[in-house]
């Protein structure tokens, strides 16, 4: 935003006022809503009800489903949602996490409030066709609630997920992008940048050990060109990527930068480093899920 320099003073004053007002409003607004846990895994149990191996089994299932179908499903188990009801809490969680692929938005939340004895299934808008409110309600009433009543939380969640996955599988959603990595470069500029900044020097240095510095940089440049071509980029981009990679390789293999050769080797050891959304340990939201209030709640 461009602003006339003469106004800078008043703008600053306005900003100060706005800040004061905002902090005052913040004080008034700060009711004790339940905090939303950070999105660290596909199943988050803050009540410690589920056993570790049960959590691992469900996590593995959800990961396998995401790899196969692309849809992100997250199960959250909390003690209570008070003072909100579970629908409002779920909405806040959905707005905060936005699970679902970025350009498709296929996310699904299953939230259980153990002490409230309520649960909710909330599909993002992209999945409202696959899981209409009625279907969600039936999964809750017929599949999950009977098991929850017997205290079998893991079994209820697992059986419910089976039904939900079957419903999602019936929907014609786009296939997940190949796990090979190259397909992602075309759309994901951050990946391309990471490749440029990290992978090129590492590769160039490794090659420099075998072929000598100049040849290694040329090879790296050619490799970068081939990769860009494989990613389906235009001619200009391909032509641009080769000299850039050569240059960056030359800089990276300069004597000054070779003080700690061992450090980079360590970080290259992880073959999953470039896999994008789902690396082995962590889990990242696709950021595309738009939760419009669909789904159903139930109690047991």
């Amino acid at each position, binding site marked *: *935003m*461009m*602003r*006339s320099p003469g*106004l800078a003073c*008043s*703008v600053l004053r*306005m900003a100060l006022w*706005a800040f004061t007002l905002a902090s005052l409003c913040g004080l008034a607004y700060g009711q004790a809503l339940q905090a939303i846990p950070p999105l660290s895994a596909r199943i988050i149990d803050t009540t410690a009800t589920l056993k570790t191996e049960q959590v691992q089994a469900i996590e593995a299932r959800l990961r396998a489903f995401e790899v196969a179908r692309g849809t992100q499903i997250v199960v959250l188990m909390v003690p209570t949602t008070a003072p909100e009801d579970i*629908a409002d809490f779920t*909405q806040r969680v959905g707005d905060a996490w936005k699970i679902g692929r970025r350009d498709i938005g296929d996310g699904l939340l299953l939230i259980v409030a153990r002490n409230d004895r309520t649960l909710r299934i909330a599909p993002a808008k992209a999945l409202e066709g696959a899981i209409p*409110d*009625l279907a969600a*309600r039936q999964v809750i009433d017929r599949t999950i609630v009977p098991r929850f009543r017997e205290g079998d939380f893991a079994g209820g969640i697992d059986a419910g997920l089976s039904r939900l996955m079957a419903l999602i599988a019936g929907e014609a959603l786009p296939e997940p992008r190949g796990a090979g990595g190259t397909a992602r470069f075309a759309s994901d500029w951050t990946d391309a940048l990471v490749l440029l900044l990290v992978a090129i020097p590492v590769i160039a240095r490794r090659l420099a050990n075998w072929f000598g510095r100049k040849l290694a940089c040329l090879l790296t440049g050619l490799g970068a060109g081939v990769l860009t071509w494989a990613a389906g980029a235009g001619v200009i981009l391909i032509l641009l990527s080769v000299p850039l990679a050569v240059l960056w390789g030359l800089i990276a293999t300069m004597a000054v930068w070779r003080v700690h050769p061992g450090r980079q080797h360590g970080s290259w050891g992880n073959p999953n480093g470039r896999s994008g959304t789902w690396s082995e340990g962590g889990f990242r939201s696709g950021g595309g899920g738009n*939760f*419009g*209030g*669909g*789904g*159903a*709640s139930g109690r047991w």
Partner: protein
Amino acid sequence: MSLARSLRAVPIFMVALLSLLLGGCGYNDFQRLDEQTKAAWSEVLNQYQRRADLVPNLVATVKGEASFEQETLTRVVEARARATAIQVTPETLNDPQALQRFQEAQGSLGSALSRLLVVSESYPTLKSNQGFQDLRVQIEGTENRITVARNRYIQAVQQYNTLARSFPSNLTALALNYSIKPNLSVNNEAQLSQPPAVDFQKK
């Protein structure tokens, strides 16, 4: 000659300056947020429409219950007729009175519906009627979607109004006559401030 040429360049320069100023004073932001509020409003209407579409089915199902409270039923039918009679296009959205009427109509349909759902609890045949229970789930889901859509509209209007009132974009609003948009409100504020009367004596 060169003076004439530089004089000719003045309008071009002025246009460039004006477009820069307009961009800087939030002209584009006004357009973006205006579109955003319209889209959010369309979603609100969309969900209200979905509710209005579900009501006839619900009424038909409840009519099958011979002994059902006729007064509750007619209130729903009348409220739906009133709610669907008031159409609010994005153009009339800037009219606070029209918005108020629309909100009142939709609000009375909402309360008539919830009354019907509460009353239906005391009819065992309705409670075990699968069609009725399915409609009930759909209406609950729609009410929830209405809440979310209204919430998003309120936020969109808030962003627009903040831009229209804060400096220096308020000058743009003044120059181009962009007024503040009326926002949604709770229409039974007085009723909500009363504590609910709980009566355990009945039944």
